[in-house]
């Protein structure tokens, strides 16, 4: 950072400029984050240790009781399982579709239009997307286009969203992929454009076909961006809330929705905080890795 030798200012001027931001950040981010950590060891209204929530004759983890309930409770296990499914499907799914679309659209003249169409769902709220997809999945073949397709091909129409868990979660991840592919595509397309033409031309002259070109030249050069895309998608997926909340499937809870249910519907502050801490413990390493990466890239520019 540069400094200006000519500028003169009172001792407190910089702090005056930063004060509003600092105050808001302390009140809204720093302090509550610490409080949540404390709540997660306490009972529902924060008046005593979480140990008081233990039931007699049941396993008890003392002040870690909220965590025990989160990990061992049926609801918690469903949420953890579904979060794992989301990660396993969403992260590779968006990366693959994003890569495919970036590579394909790079070769046609209507690139901008195609990209706008793929990117458009990013502008839509998750709630809006949920409505759109409930409509697609509608059990009535004269309303839901998926069933219309299935029946047109000679199949039986189905109540998709009533599929048994965890199948219904898979149907929700389709929505996630639909939303986020535009994002991964844009990042990957930018990286693709930055590969020098000479490298590609040289490989073509050497007789590489398009597939070899992709796997031997492009993929290695895209690897760092793919890593960023996948870490970012990991974070986005862990925080996924709205889609699951609005679709209200049977046992489709993920950690974030479970947390809000505990907080908002059941007023279980302690347990809700424990879910929040589990979430951040999962998120922080990925975020730190991500910010480092961005930092490295900035420095290289």
């Amino acid at each position, binding site marked *: *950072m540069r400094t*200006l030798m000519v*500028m003169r*200012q009172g001792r407190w*001027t*910089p*702090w005056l*400029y*930063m004060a509003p*931001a600092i105050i*808001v*950040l302390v*009140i*809204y*981010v*720093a302090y*509550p*984050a610490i409080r*949540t950590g404390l709540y997660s060891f306490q009972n529902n209204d924060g008046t005593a240790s979480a140990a008081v929530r233990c039931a007699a004759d049941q396993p008890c983890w003392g002040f870690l009781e909220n965590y025990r309930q989160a990990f061992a409770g049926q609801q918690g296990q469903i949420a953890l399982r579904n979060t794992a499914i989301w990660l396993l499907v969403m992260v590779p799914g968006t990366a693959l579709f994003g890569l495919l*679309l970036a590579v394909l*659209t790079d070769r*046609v003249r209507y690139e901008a239009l*195609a990209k706008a*169409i*793929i990117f*458009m769902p*990013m*502008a*839509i*709220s998750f*709630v*809006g997307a949920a*409505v*759109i997809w409930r*409509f697609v999945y*509608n059990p009535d*073949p*004269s*309303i839901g*286009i998926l069933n*219309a397709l299935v029946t047109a091909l000679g199949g039986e129409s189905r109540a998709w969203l009533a599929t048994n868990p965890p199948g219904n979660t898979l149907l929700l991840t389709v929505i996630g992929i639909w939303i986020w592919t535009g*994002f991964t595509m*844009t*990042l990957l397309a930018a990286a693709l454009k930055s590969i020098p033409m000479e490298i590609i031309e040289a490989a073509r002259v050497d007789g590489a076909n398009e597939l070899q070109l992709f796997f031997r030249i492009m993929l290695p050069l895209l690897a760092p961006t793919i890593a960023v895309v996948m870490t970012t998608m990991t974070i986005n997926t862990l*925080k996924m*809330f*709205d889609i699951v*909340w*609005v679709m209200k499937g049977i046992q489709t809870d993920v950690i*974030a929705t479970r947390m*809000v249910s505990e*907080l*908002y519907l059941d007023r279980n502050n302690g347990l809700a905080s424990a879910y*929040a801490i589990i*979430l*951040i413990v999962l998120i922080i390493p990925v*975020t*730190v890795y991500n*910010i480092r990466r*961005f930092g490295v890239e900035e420095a290289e520019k």
Partner: protein
Amino acid sequence: MNRDRFVMFVNRIPLNLAIIILCAIWLLPTLGLFITSFRPQQAVNETGWWMALAAARPGTDEYQTYCAQCHGEDYKALPNADLSSPDLIAQYRRSIQLSGTFNREYDGVIHIPEAQRPDAQQTADILDHLRIASGLQEAPPRFTFANYKDVLVGYSARGGTYDEVCAADGPSGTRTCDFWTDATAPNAVLRGMINSFIVTVPATFLPIILAGFAAYALSWMDFNGRRVMFAALVGLQIVPLQMVLVPIFRMYTDLGLNGTFLGVWLFHTGFGLPYAIYLIRNFVGRLPADLFESAYLDGANHFTVFRRIVLPLALPAIAALAIFQFLWVWNDLLVALIFLGNNAPVLTYQLSQLVDSLGGGWHRMTAAAFISIAVPLLIFFAFQRFFVRGLLAGSVKG
């Protein structure tokens, strides 16, 4: 077209086909929502949106199956019973009267044998069809704005549209039948839209203004601990929103801020700040130093420099940031759900409520959904560049 180009064209068919199919898959769900939101209720229930243009008048199929073989395609095959004559059809005011004729005997032949009769619903559709064919009734439009009007005023009853019910029954209960009065009722989507704007506009500008001041100090003022401050403020990006909901919810309960706009504005400000500081500082820090030096030499103080030089020059960064933050707040459900709830329902909240109750059917729910996504889509198509840039730079946002 010469040969080479033709070969090229053929070779590229699979590529183009793949892209077009993928784009179609991405576009179809939204397109379906859009088209459905303009279709009348009956049409939505009878045929899929992909048939919107092909779908014929109600009862056409039924007439073909049950009546056409005697009465003819043109309704006039039997001269004594011309079904396209308004005088004849006007005698049948209800479908039960029409089905009454099925038992009659004409020249000793029963009108329609028991086994070949349409059921009650089909008869009603056939009557509708005949009333339209004979000109007694207007054909229902293929597309209508009625769904939008219904949701804007929050009308969700099953029988008929808001306009029809108001024309027939007039005001009743909470319904005043005055559009602007009804549209500000708590469950009206227009009210939700207004609330969304009330939430979003300050929640967009507050963090940008605060971040602007902080970023200026962090890039062009000299003080101890500058680097540490910058790292600390920006580092707060990693705290996920879910992590602070519980304490702030409790704090708001104590302060009575739950359900107030102020509470939501401040919350979004807190969460927009780290990223806003990061982005603006990166931009402002790269402005040329000469600019500042000459201004200071001219005797300008920090505030003048900030207002006259920094703000105008940082406009591109601020624009990208503003679009990003606006959409983020506009599309948010979680914060609105927890801190506003039904005290001041915003669009996303109302939409999620509609989904829960299936609010009077798909024709209206699609309209409400489209209203809620219209603003983001408009912004997206108008400022695509800024939008993509803001989102990409914001991809590390917590």
